[in-house]
Each structure stands twice: as structure tokens, then as C-alpha cells.
């Protein structure tokens, strides 16, 4: 196994072009586990740790450009206001040691349906910046996950950053595990209210072959909120609407029975999380609306 250590992004792209089978490694929290257990033995490891830019983030007017290697700890500590959903999801990643090493780039590269960042990324409507010697492109998160542990990247591409819209409304993230900390997801749910566009976006983890959005649930809710004038009035969402939203979120799942949980439980739990997180975000939205009106 050869260990490639590019000193710059350009060198990294060149190395990846020359060795498309090279496995990029940053925090190593996924890759090293696989190597230690001999589950994979890549010909080349491409170490990205010398490329400082990958661990930087930039808060712009509308978006946050999050370097692929920015650690979950950094996200929790620095981007809670701009990326509340992702910050909540980051807090559920493994242990403090792993959160100090791992970043969103790894979750995206591995593209496991159990990756904790995915539901929040889907709900945010972000874009993934990938690049190769051939050029740079932005992949909308909706197009990123293409199969079980497969993403839309070409073999010569590397993930440089994720461009996330700054939260324009409340966001939430919930994850079920059979332990109260340091646990892999049985299933997870992310939600983001987007008052500016009067839309709602969601993300579901570990309940389908890939991370997915609950598209029907989103559309239903957006329509219900719109028709009822809820965005303007800030009135409580009727339980019937929340219930329907939860059912549709459940319906968006396509889970399996495995050692971590039954398919039936996953569907059930996603519905509960959808209802609860909707409640929390909407309460928060109402609270903000009220204080805005008072001011």
C-alpha cells in the first residue's frame, strides 16, 4: 500500500488523476477502521491532512463554505447559528475523539446510509463541491447519493467542500440508537424550515439504501402551511397536519431488518421523529415570529 502525501490541493488532484483507485483519507475515522479490520486494502492511500484549506470554513452572506475536513467538533463549536441542523447532527457523531477527527467529507465519501451528517445535509439543500484535473463541479445534495455506499463522484474527483445555505429558519435533527451516546444510527431524521422560500426540506438516514428526502411529506407540509396561511399567522400546526406529515415521512422509508433494528421499527420511529422535530422547529419559528412582531 502506497501512502501519497500531497502538499497542496493541486498535487492531490494530480495524484488522484494518476491513481484513480487511491482512497482519500483525512480524519481516518472510516477508512482506518476498514483497513484495521482488513475489510479493504487499497493500493494507494491519499492523505489530505497537509491541505490546510480543507479544514477551513467561510461564512458568506448566503452560504457557508465548509471545507471537507472541518471536524464535527469545529462545526458544533463554531457554526451552530449558521448550520443548526448539521451542528445537532455533529453532536451525535460517535465520541469526542472521533468528532475531533471526522468531518463531513468523510461521510459524503463513504456515503453510508448511516452517516450522521446526511439527513442534515439533505434538509439544508446544500451542494457538494468536487474537483478533478478536468475541472470543478457542484453536485446538488439531492443528486449525490446514488446507491448503497455509492455517490455521484467520478474516480478522479475529490471532495473539496460543501456549500450550505445559511439557515433561514429553524432546523432540527434526531437520531435513534439503542444507547444514549456514541451509537450508530438505527434511523435518523433531519428537518429544515425555509421561511424565505416557504418550503420545508427533510432528510432520512439509515432507513433506505441511501439517505433520502421525504419528498411527499415536504410537499404536503409546504402546501398545508401555505394554504392555511401558517407562515404569516404563526399559528400552531394542527395535529392532523403533523400526523399526515409523519405518516408521509414514514412512507418515504424503504428500510431493511438488520441487527440494529427492524424495518417496521424504523418506519415507526422516523414517523415519530418527523412529528416531533416538526413540532420543535415550528414552535421555534412561531417564537421568532412573535418576538419579531413585538420588536
Amino acid at each position, binding site marked *: 500500500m502506497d501512502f501519497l502525501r500531497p502538499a497542496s490541493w493541486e498535487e492531490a488532484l494530480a495524484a488522484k488523476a494518476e491513481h484513480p483507485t487511491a482512497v482519500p483519507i483525512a480524519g481516518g475515522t472510516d477508512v482506518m477502521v476498514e483497513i*484495521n*479490520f*482488513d475489510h479493504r486494502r487499497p493500493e494507494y492511500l491519499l492523505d489530505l491532512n497537509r491541505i490546510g484549506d480543507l479544514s477551513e470554513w467561510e461564512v458568506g452572506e448566503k452560504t457557508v463554505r465548509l471545507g471537507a475536513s472541518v471536524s464535527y467538533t469545529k462545526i458544533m463549536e463554531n457554526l451552530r447559528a449558521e448550520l443548526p441542523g448539521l451542528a*445537532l447532527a455533529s*453532536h*451525535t457523531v460517535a465520541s469526542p475523539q472521533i468528532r475531533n477527527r471526522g468531518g463531513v467529507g468523510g461521510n459524503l465519501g463513504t456515503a453510508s446510509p448511516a452517516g450522521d451528517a446526511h439527513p442534515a445535509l439533505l434538509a439544508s439543500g446544500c451542494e457538494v463541491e468536487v474537483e478533478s484535473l478536468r475541472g470543478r463541479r457542484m453536485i446538488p445534495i439531492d443528486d449525490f447519493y446514488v446507491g448503497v455506499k455509492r455517490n455521484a463522484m467520478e474516480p478522479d474527483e475529490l471532495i473539496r467542500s460543501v456549500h450550505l445555505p445559511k439557515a433561514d429558519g429553524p432546523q*432540527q*435533527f*434526531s*437520531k*435513534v*440508537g*439503542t*444507547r*444514549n*451516546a*456514541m*451509537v*450508530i444510527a*438505527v434511523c435518523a431524521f433531519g428537518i429544515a424550515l425555509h421561511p424565505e422560500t416557504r418550503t420545508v426540506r427533510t432528510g432520512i438516514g439509515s432507513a433506505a439504501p441511501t439517505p433520502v428526502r421525504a419528498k411527499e411529506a415536504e410537499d404536503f407540509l409546504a402546501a398545508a402551511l401555505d394554504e392555511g396561511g401558517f407562515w404569516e399567522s404563526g399559528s400552531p400546526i394542527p395535529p392532523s397536519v403533523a400526523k399526515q406529515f409523519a405518516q408521509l415521512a414514514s412512507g418515504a422509508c424503504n428500510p431493511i431488518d438488520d*441487527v*440494529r*433494528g*427492524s424495518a*417496521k*421499527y424504523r*418506519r*415507526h*420511529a422516523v414517523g*415519530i*421523529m418527523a412529528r*416531533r422535530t416538526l*413540532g*420543535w422547529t415550528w414552535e421555534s419559528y412561531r417564537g421568532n415570529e412573535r418576538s419579531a412582531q413585538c420588536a
Partner: protein
Amino acid sequence: MAGTPTPRAATAPARTPTNLTQGGKTKAGIGESTLRPDGTLKVTGEFAYSSDMWHEDMLWGQTLRSTVAHAEIRSIDTSQALATPGVYAVLTYDDLPTEMKNYGLEIQDTPVLAHKKVRHHGEPVALVAADHPETARRAAAKIKIEYVELPLITDEASATAPDAILVHEGRDDHHIGHVAHPNIVHRQPIIRGNVAEARKRADVIVEGEYTFGMQDQAFLGPESGLAVPSEDGGVELYVATQWLHSDLRQIAPVLGLPEEKVRMTLSGVGGAFGGREDLSMQIHACLLALRTGKPVKIVYNRFESFFGHVHRHPAKLYYEHGATKDGKLTHMKCRIVLDGGAYASASPAVVGNASSLSVGPYVIDDVDIEAIALYTNNPPCGAMRGFGAVQACFAYEAQMDKLAAKLGIDPVEFRQMNAMEQGTIMPTGQPVDSPAPVAELLRRIKAMPLPPEQQWLAAGEGADVRALPGGLSNTTHGEGVVRGIGYAVGIKNVGFSEGFDDYSTAKVRMEVINGEPVATVHTAMAEVGQGGVTVHAQIARTELGVTQVTIHPADTQVGSAGSTSASRQTYVTGGAVKNTCEHVREAVLEIGRRKFGSYHPAWATAELLLEGGKVVTDGGEVLADLVDVLESEAVELELEWRHRPTEAFDLHTGQGNGHVQYSFAAHRAVVEVDTELGLVKVIELACAQDVGKALNPLSVVGQIQGGTTQGLGVAVMEEIIVDPKTAKVRNPSFTDYLIPTILDTPTIPVDVLELADEHAPYGLRGIGEAPTLSSTPAVLAAIRNATGLELNKTPVRPEHLTGT
């Protein structure tokens, strides 16, 4: 070479927050909370575990394990592995050097390497030694094994079917004569009184069928050791184990060496909990070392560790209890079916415990009990903290709650009404002849203040998810959360039972070094984290009046200490250390009498003690300094010590004085359940336990909290999941075999009782296991209380709580 660091005598005593009686006058003697010599090293990561050992020129051993659970081996082709550069040896069954090719704790039914057949997933088939662990792993992967799969035995029905394939053919062990089928390892019935008659007096009868999942010891230091060939043709083995001499007895015959040529030294042990009673890599490393003439180290990774040791027996338990309407238990019938897996390990003794303790700490005169262990193609099961008593306690405590509910009596009161006490006759006919404060323990936990409600609101600003079910996963801010409270109490035996010669040996030396009297304590006791090294030094200080005590590393150059199991080491090896110290003290006093007897009449007439480095009378008068008594003489004795003998249980009636001592603990669990998501947060697990005498109060509280947490684990998360269709383990990793984190571990207030057992050294009671028993049923009772669900299986999964 790095080995186990020599444990040093602790010098800084620390008081435990619990108010326990102080020990003798000697500083850091018994009753004091002296600190562990290995504590700081372990916390700072500097402690040398057995996996940290290194030897110049050493090779790495690798085990190749079966990928199927039950199959004939048609062929093994090792040629490609042998041809791999860096490989020094590849061994299979055909390379075993003597006629002895099996080992086992009681029944030698476990092949060192599989012969013609594998009986469970992960069974060792071949060994490789190479100059790099990676090379060894890759070479092992090149060994080609042709399997022809056989039908699987996975449960009682498939095991005992008339045409069932036999897991072991041609059994000739001493249990085969009294079992109904060769796929049953051992059966122990206990019949006492007349259940049919007593049943007629019952106003209410409750029945239940309970399932206990397969728990793993999940010790943090995986199996590892280093075998170094010696010039005399023997081998030095440095290993993390629970009982050096039991290992030795099994290793030497397979190697074809006399026991004195297999010299074993305990190296740093990272926990055991029963999982190191059976051999793992010991023989394998020795075989490779003797074959290659080089030191060989074997370290399992976590994945292999799940296959490298036995687990807690999963069990099905069928219970019937009756009671009169005024709350008196009339009778009990039960049948306990333990899945022993492919090899016997400790199954026979686990059967003995499960049956003899199946009534629990209650008075029931009329009982009809049967416990069996099966041979199946599931992973082998054997010793784990609580040893058969855990499974029974889970079931009988659920029954107690059902009875209390049916009778409309408070569950604690109902238990107290039927609680055993000193003088109660066990179902085996054995009288309980030391304190059995069952009702008092229950009274104490019930009287403890309850934790405040809705603690997640305490922070003020939103919900503190750490105090809620789901914790940091942020699944509820209080929605769906219901509190429940549950109680349980249990009984565990202490020491090896059923007539086993359960002795220990201690060698103690006393001499003057640098002008100070020093005691050296040498035993073969395996320090696996229980704190024996601390306690031995305390005993030596108390008995010999010295400050400086050296604990010699445990090895086989001294007689057997027995196993660090069955809550027995403080009792038995502690007893042996005390006994040898007493004889050493007598010898020292004899020297004193010889030298100074003529100067003071008290040497002949008074009761003499050793205190503060001096010989003193029981009235406190100083007769001499130990330094002057001993001068350049050293007193050294090695003595065996035994507790009261026990008897075998009758094979038909189960009668017999089978146990040494009993240990009791009671728990109150307070849980909060997210009833919609089926997630549980244990808020508090209060424990009251009688320890007889707390030799080290801080360690006592630590043991109780640890046992309590291990019981919590199997209540809500811990289970090795075996696929019934393939008998393969589905979750051999810490990603999918979950153990409690600190956020899952509740506050554990501990109330320690010290009612002396006059038969035991210092009146002490073995304490390590009892808290593991009642913790699990208390949590289950609390979850039932919160949800109203019946919950007959542990661990409880979200699916069980949500009907999904």
C-alpha cells in the same frame, strides 16, 4: 521485556464517602480504602497490559477460525500459507505433538484445533506464526479449507429430537449417564416437599416464560499473551487469565510437557468477568513457540475476541408460582434451559447454580426444579459474572411482581413477607447459617429518597437531552416520557460449590530491609481488576503490623490460588493470606520469645500482636521492635487454606450442602421510558448489599457499581445476536454489541451493610456478583411499571416497547 509492572504497596489511604467502620490500628490495614496501585496507570494509559508485551525477535501468531457453524472438514491445504515469505510455521490438528488434543475446564471436549469437524462459528482450525502480524493474517487467509455443512442444532427442540445429529459423538464424561439425550450436557433436578399438595393451598397461581439473551463479558483488554521457549525445552507463558493453575493443568498435557516446564506469569489483565476462565490463545502460542523456537505473541482484535471466549448462557425459563391470598408463597415449579453452545466449558456448574438458586432469596418449602444445559452449534457459553444465578433472578423477580400485582400487595412488601433469613432451609436442604438480611436490604432501598422528576428541565433553558431517553441523539424533549420504578433482590453463592476442593495458597515472607520490617505476599491470584492486590497488602499490614508490603507478581512458582471467579478471591485467597500471615506471626513471636522471653513475663503469658512494627501485648504494652526480633532472619511460609467443604447435589433430588456462602443485594431502579420510540434512560439504580465486612470500602462500592452497570447493560442493550438459520454471530463488534457508556450509567447510590459471617475470614462476604443479579430485573420491573407491558425477554429492545 515489558511485563506486568510489579504492583507497589499503596501508601495513601482514602476514605470512601460511605460511612463504614474503620479497621484496626495499623495504617492502611483492612477496613481502609487504600488506593489501587494500578489505578493511576490505567487511567493515564501507562499500565502495561498483556497485549503490550514485546520480545526481541518475536513472531506473531494468528488463528484461522471456521466460517461456518457446523461442518465436516474435508481437507485443509496450507501450502500457500507456508510459502508466504515471513511465515515460520502453519499448524493444524495433525501437528499436535501428543495424544492429548483436547482441553476443557471440567470436560475435555474442546479441540485445540478442529479435527475433521467444526461445531461452531469461529472455531480455531489452523495457526500461523509470521514475523509480522499482517503477514500472519494474510497467510492464514490463504489456507484453504473444504467444508461440507451439517445440519444445525440451535435450540432445545433441534437438540433433543430423537433423530438429532449429535454435537459430540461417543461422550464418556461423567454426566452422560444421567441426561436424557447426548445433546444435553448436564441436568440437575431439585425436588423438595410436595408441589402437588402445596399447589392446592394456592389462591393465585402465576406462570411465565422468560428469555435471557446471550451477554458478552466485553472486557476491554482482548485475549493476548506471549510464549517464550526456554532452554530446557519448556516454555514461559505470560498471559492475561483468571486462573493460572487451571490453565497450566490444561496446557501442559497438550504440549507433552511436565507442568514444571510450563512456567506461567500473569501479565496485565484488562477485565475478565468469567470470560478468561477458559483457555483462548494459551496453547496456540505455546505450540507455535515450541515449533519455531522463537517467542510468539498472539493478540486478538475485538472481532476475534467475540469468538475467543465463552459468553453468558442464553436461557429459556419456565416458572410457576403459587401464593395464598394473604401473600404467602405456596410452591414453585421451574424449568431452566441453558444453551451451552458447542463445548461444555462451565455449563455443568452453571446448571448447578441455576437450579440451586432458582427459588431466589425466598422461603418456599415445596419446589420442583429442573435445569439443563444443551450442546448446540451456537457459540460456546460458560462463566460470566453471576453464573446461572443471573438468568434465574431475572425470571423469579418478574414472577414476584406478577404475584404481588395479582394479590394487590405492594411488591416490596410481598417480597419481605416471603424473604429468607438466617436459618432458612434452601431447596437443596442446606440451612443458611449466616445473616441473610433480605427484608432489611429491601427496606433500605425503598427508604432511599427518589430522584427528582423531570430532571431535564433543571437547567432552565430548554430540555437537557442528556437527562432524557435518547440522550444526545435528541429524540425527545419530554414527549412520550413516562417514569417507572422497579425493585428486585437476588441471591448468589460465593466460592466453588458442589464438593469442589476450592483452596488457595499464600506464601508470605517477613524480613528486615533497610532497617524496616517488610512483608512480601506471593500468590497465584489473578488480579483482573477486582482489587485483590490492594486487599492482600491490607491483610498483611493488619496481621503483621508492617507498613511496607510487596505483592509478588502472580505466577505458577507458588501453589494455586484458585480462580478469580465466583466472588471468591477476597474470601479464599484473602483467607489464605490471612492464614499464612498468622503462622508467620507465630513464627516471628517464637523468635521473639527465644530472644527476649526472659526479659518480660508477658512474652509467655499475654496475647501478643504485631502493630506498628512492634510486638505489643493485647493491653498495648510494647515488648520489642520487629527489627530487633528479626535482625537478619527471614520468616517465610507457603500454606494452603480451605473454607468449609461442600457436597455434591444428589442427581435425583438435588439435596446436598452444596454452597459455601450466600451473598445478597437488592436494587431499586428508576427509569424514564420514551414510550413512543421505545428508548430507555435509567435515571437511578440504588443498591443495598450486605458485604459482611468491607475490607476496602472504596473497592466494595466500585464493585457494586460495576456489577450494577453490567446488569443494566443486559437489561437494555447487550446481546450477542446469533442467526438461528446459520448459527453465526451477527454483531461481533463494539459498533453493534453495545455496552453502557457513562451517559447510560445512572447515579448508583450504594448502601453497604456489614453483618459478619462467622465462618468467613474477618466475617467478609464475597461481593462481586450479587449486584449483577438484581440490577437487571429491577430495570425490567421499572420499564414494566412505566409502560404496562409484560416484557418477558431481556435485553429490552425498542421493538418490544413499540410493538414493531
